[in-house]
């Protein structure tokens, strides 16, 4: 079938901000789809609120709208662009839900937009629990006994009927938000209440729990001609009970017989056919480990996180093929881009083992509940490839960047055997490490571990193979044959060094002299049956033949940024990809090394060669030994890549861009102080202390409040602002362990305006594309602040000073490429907070709104060009006539027990952008886009710290003037009354009569403004209030600055048209300025 002839213009919906359950995989899928559509000569209109993505680049789509993903904005854009078709199955659950809403509102009919790909009916059949159940029953596909409930008593009744444990799943959510397993009535009631809140349609499913069964997934494709294939199947290391996004996953399945494999494959084909899906689809099964019995657990009628994983695991571009199917092609008409000989209508054959390992944010949320269940908690994941499971799982472990390089956690060395054994029963992020610890000590057999964990013995035996080799290494001299055995099992040089008491360098030198080096193999979709054109490689010590044909071209390695985590998101992938593109444009071969399957950078046709490898010194050096590149670029891969710079340089590798020594001068506190003295740039006073007494004395000298943080990360709550000595003493005893080796840094906390600058320098000149002003005052992590471009309140003098300081630092640090600087402005004086001599989170945002291709320029500088030569003049690029606002997005709903209050520790997982000619509307778009439910009327609850009461009074008045009812806790209420405002006094949490929590639950409060109060008791209350707002989906603002801006937006909303949109191309091209 040829492509649909009526299509000229197609709209693609992206997935919005990165949140837990919906990460970079949709940037990858969406970008691939847009490229596939453009390839067909179609005009592509893209809508996504997330500026950090590749897909929102103006060369990915013809018309890019960075606007809130709401039906109102989508309708506005559709009415403006009048697309012929809408592709919504590549934008995750967010995109799918929007498409459903647009169809239901009649928008698609009104503007004659055809929903492309999977029809609406299929989406409903898969997503609506009752319809899904009917469909499965019709097919005879078994699903666990279940019922849909809309209230708590029905849930309890059903559970009593089928017996506990039961699983609760809310309808129309992703990442399992609001779901869970209940072992008893009390737990059930708790989970159902939450689930009902989260469900878009107020329904939850209660079903029989098959926890402990094997969890198997299939990625299936179907075209409009009813041709179906499975791209890949996957087996979860963690049995049913742990969300698949939180499970370690292998591809292909390892413990299934052909019969089981085909049984579930056939079921997948039956299901995708019955649903009528056109494109990609994901089916999840629970398989009884002791019989042929299985249940269908879930079907996602769209491209999913698993599809991204399956694409990277097999080389089969699911998103691309889905896009082609959506515009009318059949599978046998689409070329397999990897072989370029065969067609997309085949099933990939793997000749390697793939492991996916989730990356959890527990390093940031130390106090969060680490238990894994049906609600996903991981922010990202790593993938690894090897010829053995042992090799792949060890590669995955060292890709995580959680301070481990094998399946061993130092802290467990101190655990006694009983504690290790006890820990086996806990299902959390450390389970695989505990299993290995138990195996290593020989305190539990494979059978015993299987009995406790239900993890298949195959996996446990494989882990034992690893610990067995570790134990031999610990016992016996490191002979060449033992070295070979250790490398064959997949242990890193640093792991062998640790066990044998040598250094990683020694191990590396020794094994290389013994000829023990890895081979590189190709991922080609077909297990070598056909010659492949795609340069996608992985390493293995389990092979004889190396397939990489090394050439003598000028080439550079670009290091990626690893898994998505809090603080290091998709922004850095954007930078890596742009650097690769810039190099290729210069005629330089670009080689990328990365381990994140969700990203665009690991798409097989982005770079000249892709090495899917851990980002460790050894793994990177192995690639460099093989490729012999001219050098490495580290400044775009976030802290991951920067951290590798010095060890690579030490090994003799050329680092392009800012030198390793200059990076160190910016990062090392003492050396940086020297730079500041030299350049006469002030910073907040600070000192480094090694004892509590010194801290107390130092803080008194500097003057409270002070910002305190350990000079190294203990894993605790790293950075806090303390206002007096008792708080300081509390912090020192609670959060850090201060010793002469581990000093604590005490800095004056300056409550001022925070300003952020991204600049490009060649060491002589320095171009500043834009300055961003933060809405929240200093003290809130820059990643959690609302940032505004261009600055709205800074004086000309301040801006001049910022430009001047930036230039001075660029020259002093010999910056060759990008740098990011954070300033604080207090009473018109500018102080520096920190400098990062690398790309930052704000680079994609700023590149898009200023139209300065920062990464491209920085890459060319790193490769030897200069700014003058490229036609740039030193200084600030004149600001644009519009305003762009970047707002953080949080995933608090997924993380129970996490305090949502903004603090110096970053907590957001993603970001959105609002852009407009009016500041207030740009802000409105950012706030709406970030998912804050701004109420237009109702009651606002104030409960603030004493230090904030004065300011709060003004704020309360402003809200009262907008006809909001005001409620407050006693102290706060008293202050508000002084303003002559009507205020309802509410009881504190422990005062049962008119409990705040109860009021939130009852819907009597529509927004909460709460600032942090120190002290154990009030801290606990504040925490409870804040969590209650999350559980009940109401806005909670923990910074008065944010609250002021929300107030401004509310006041603006009464005067102006809210929904107005313009493509980025029009903004940067200076188009329609009439609003």
């Amino acid at each position, binding site marked *: 079938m040829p492509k649909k002839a009526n299509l000229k213009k197609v709209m693609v919906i992206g997935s919005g901000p990165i949140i837990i359950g919906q990460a970079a995989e949709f940037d990858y899928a969406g970008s691939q789809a847009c490229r596939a559509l453009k390839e067909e000569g179609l005009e592509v209109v893209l809508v996504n609120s997330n500026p950090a993505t590749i897909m929102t680049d103006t060369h990915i789509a013809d018309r890019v709208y960075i606007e809130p993903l709401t039906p109102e904005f989508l309708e506005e854009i559709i009415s403006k662009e009048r697309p012929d078709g809408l592709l919504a199955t590549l934008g995750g659950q967010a995109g799918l839900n929007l498409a459903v809403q647009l169809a239901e509102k009649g928008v698609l009919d009104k503007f004659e937009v055809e929903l492309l790909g999977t029809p609406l009916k299929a989406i409903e059949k898969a997503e609506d629990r009752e319809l899904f159940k009917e469909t499965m029953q019709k097919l005879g596909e078994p699903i666990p006994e279940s019922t849909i409930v809309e209230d708590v008593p029905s849930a309890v009744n059903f559970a009593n009927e089928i017996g506990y444990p039961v699983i609760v799943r809310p309808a129309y959510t992703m990442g399992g938000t609001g779901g869970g397993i209940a072992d008893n009535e009390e737990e059930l009631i708790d989970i159902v209440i939450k689930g009902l809140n989260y469900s878009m349609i107020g329904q939850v499913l209660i079903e029989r729990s098959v926890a402990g069964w094997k969890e198997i997934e299939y990625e299936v494709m179907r075209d409009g001609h009813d041709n179906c294939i499975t791209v890949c199947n996957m087996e979860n290391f963690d049995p049913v009970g742990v969300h698949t996004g939180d499970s370690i996953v292998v591809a292909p399945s390892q413990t*299934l017989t*052909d019969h089981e494999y085909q049984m579930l494959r056939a079921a997948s084909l039956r299901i995708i056919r019955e649903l009528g899906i056109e494109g990609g689809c994901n089916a999840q099964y629970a398989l009884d480990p002791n019989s042929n019995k299985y249940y269908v657990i879930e079907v996602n009628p769209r491209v999913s996180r698993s599809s991204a994983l399956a694409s990277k695991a097999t080389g089969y571009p699911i998103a691309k093929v889905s896009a082609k199917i959506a515009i009318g092609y059949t599978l046998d008409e689409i070329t397999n881009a990897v072989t370029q000989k065969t067609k997309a*209508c085949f099933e990939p054959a793997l*000749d390697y083992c793939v492991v996916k390992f989730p990356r959890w944010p527990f390093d940031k949320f130390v106090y969060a509940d680490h238990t894994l269940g049906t609600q996903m908690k991981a922010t990202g994941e790593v993938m690894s490839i090897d010829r053995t499971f042992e090799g792949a799982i060890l590669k995955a472990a060292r890709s995580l960047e959680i301070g481990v390089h094998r399946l061993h956690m130092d802290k467990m060395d101190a655990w006694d055997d009983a504690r290790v054994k006890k820990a086996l029963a806990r299902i959390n992020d450390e389970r695989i490490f505990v299993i290995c610890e138990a195996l290593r000590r020989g305190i539990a057999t494979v059978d015993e571990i299987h009995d406790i964990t239900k993890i298949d013995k*195959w996996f446990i035996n494989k882990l034992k193979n690893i610990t067995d080799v570790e134990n031999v290494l610990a016992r016996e001299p490191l002979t060449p044959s033992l070295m070979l055995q250790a490398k064959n099992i997949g242990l890193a040089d640093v792991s062998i060094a640790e066990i044998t008491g040598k250094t990683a360098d020694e191990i590396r030198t020794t094994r290389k002299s013994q000829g023990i080096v890895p081979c590189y*193999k190709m991922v080609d979709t077909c297990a070598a*049956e*056909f010659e492949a054109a795609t340069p996608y490689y992985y390493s293995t010590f389990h092979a004889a*033949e190396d397939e990489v044909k090394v050439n003598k071209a000028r080439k550079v390695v670009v290091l990626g940024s690893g898994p998505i985590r809090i603080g290091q998101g998709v922004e850095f992938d954007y930078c890596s990809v742009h650097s690769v593109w810039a190099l290729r444009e210069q005629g330089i071969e670009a080689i990328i090394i990365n381990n994140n399957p969700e990203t665009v950078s690991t798409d097989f046709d982005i770079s000249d060669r892709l090495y899917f490898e851990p980002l460790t010194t050894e793994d990177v050096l192995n690639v460099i030994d093989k490729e012999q590149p001219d050098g490495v670029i580290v400044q775009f891969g976030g802290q991951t890549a920067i951290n590798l710079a010095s060890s690579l340089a030490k090994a003799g590798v050329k680092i392009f861009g800012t030198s390793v020594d200059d990076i160190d001068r910016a990062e090392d506190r003492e050396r940086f102080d020297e730079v500041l003295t030299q350049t006469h740039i002030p910073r907040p006073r600070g000192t480094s202390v090694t004892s509590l007494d010194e801290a107390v004395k130092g803080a008194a000298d500097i003057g409270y409040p002070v910002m305190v943080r350990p000079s190294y990360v203990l894993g605790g709550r790293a950075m806090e602002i303390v206002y007096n000595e008792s708080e300081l003493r509390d912090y020192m005893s609670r959060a850090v362990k201060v010793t002469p080796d581990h000093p604590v840094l005490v800095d004056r906390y300056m409550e001022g305006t925070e300003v952020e600058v991204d600049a490009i320098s060649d060491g002589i000149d320095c171009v500043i594309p834009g300055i961003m002003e933060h809405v929240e005052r200093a003290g809130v992590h820059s990643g959690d602040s609302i940032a505004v471009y261009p600055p709205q309140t800074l004086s000309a003098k301040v801006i001049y000073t910022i430009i001047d300081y930036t230039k001075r630092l660029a020259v002093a640090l010999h910056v060759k490429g990008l740098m990011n600087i954070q300033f604080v402005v207090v009473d018109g004086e500018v102080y520096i907070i920190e400098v990062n001599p690398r790309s930052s989170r704000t680079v994609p945002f700023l590149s898009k709104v200023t139209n300065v291709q920062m990464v491209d320029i920085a890459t060319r500088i790193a490769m030897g060009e200069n700014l003058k030569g490229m036609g740039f003049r030193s200084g600030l690029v004149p600001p644009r006539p519009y305003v762009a606002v970047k707002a953080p997005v949080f995933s608090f709903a997924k993380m129970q027990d996490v305090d949502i209050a903004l603090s110096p520790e970053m907590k957001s997982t993603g970001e959105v952008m609002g852009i407009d000619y009016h500041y207030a509307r740009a802000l409105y778009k950012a706030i709406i886009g970030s998912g804050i439910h701004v109420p237009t009327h109702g009651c606002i609850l104030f409960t603030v710290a004493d230090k904030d009461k004065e300011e709060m009074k003004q704020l309360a008045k402003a809200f009262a003037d907008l006809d909001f009812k005001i409620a407050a806790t006693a102290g706060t209420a008293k202050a508000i009354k002084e303003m002559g405002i009507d205020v309802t006094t509410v009881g504190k949490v422990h005062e049962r009569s008119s409990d705040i929590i109860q009021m939130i639950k009852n819907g009597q409060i529509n927004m909460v403004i709460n600032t942090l109060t120190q002290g154990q008791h009030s801290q606990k209350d504040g925490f409870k209030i804040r969590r209650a707002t999350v559980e009940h989906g109401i806005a909670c603002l923990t910074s008065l600055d944010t609250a002021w801006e929300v107030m401004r937006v509310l006041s603006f909303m009464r005067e102006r048209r809210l929904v107005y949109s313009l493509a980025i191309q029009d903004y940067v091209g200076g188009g329609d300025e009439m609003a």
Partner: protein
Amino acid sequence: MKGKLILEDGASYTGELLNNINATGEVVFNTSMVGYQESLTDPSYCRQILTLTYPIVGNYGVADIFMQSRKCFVGGFVIGELCEKGSNWHYENSLADFLTKQGVPCLYNVDTRAVTRHIRAAGTMKGIIVPDDASQTEMDELMARPIKKEVVMEVTTPKPYDIDVEGETGKKPYHVVALDYGVKYNILKSMHDMGIKLTVVPADTSAEDVLALQPDGIFLSNGPGDPADVPEQIEVVKTLVEEGTRQRGIPMFGICLGHQLLCRALGADTYKLKFGHRGCNQPVKRLADGRVHISSQNHGFAVDEKSLSGLPIEVTHINVNDGTVEGIRHTELPIFSVQYHPEAAPGPNDNMYLFDEFMSLMEKKGE
């Protein structure tokens, strides 16, 4: 013990040798990720040295129910990791144990991707498996051994046997005579599951004897080797086409070697593919409606499409990857055949509909 696989052109691959048995055979590769026991016991691999591209083998052990014939017929087995501890509720024995009991020379810890790439480029060729310390003379002697051609008689059933339909169905079941050139059990099971009564006869059974059984359908099975090497069987098929199908209207269905023998009997030619099709992911297009199904395949020869002109043969299926003939039907008679394996085991069961088609031809005949 160390061992190696040496190919006719001198390429050599090292590994560990499981059973100290030498082997000479044609080296072929299969890209399936599961179903190693089914492949090992597929008689079509008789005397071939089978290489698996999937690098971890033995994960779920072996079990009796996965046998596709009475024993392993492969000449040798070349794999990556030989998984020691299998895990599955079907598990009865380890793969290593099974290979030893079956006397299969197995070279493991081999870079099978390298072997595959070599064969892909150079084509299927002869190879030997030897211990690392084998002398040059020994290796030369092994390499010089001719590859045995008369393999069908080695794998076929020595005696005819019946597979009856259990229980009373009320209706008299259809009776199919299956010519066993090396039939896989799942073919028989697939037909049996449809309520067909089977008589499986040795490959050298005469057409007269087949027809004397008064079958409702005739089935030509899969099997090893070059179809050109069994002219007697082709003659039998010729007679069955004429006297069975043309004269008595008995439908005929062929799979794999059966398909090739049928085509040769009808006057077509077959030729050897460079490295064959062996795996579970081969896309086959049904020309009648353009639908594509994924199939399990194991063949080194194919029917030459050019040789079909002027013959009463219509191509019904082609391979999407290389366009080779995957299925045909007789333009006048109720005869059809496919090159691939609708019975799967191992592989996808997308093509079970072919057995239904055979069934409906028998139903038509009965009307």
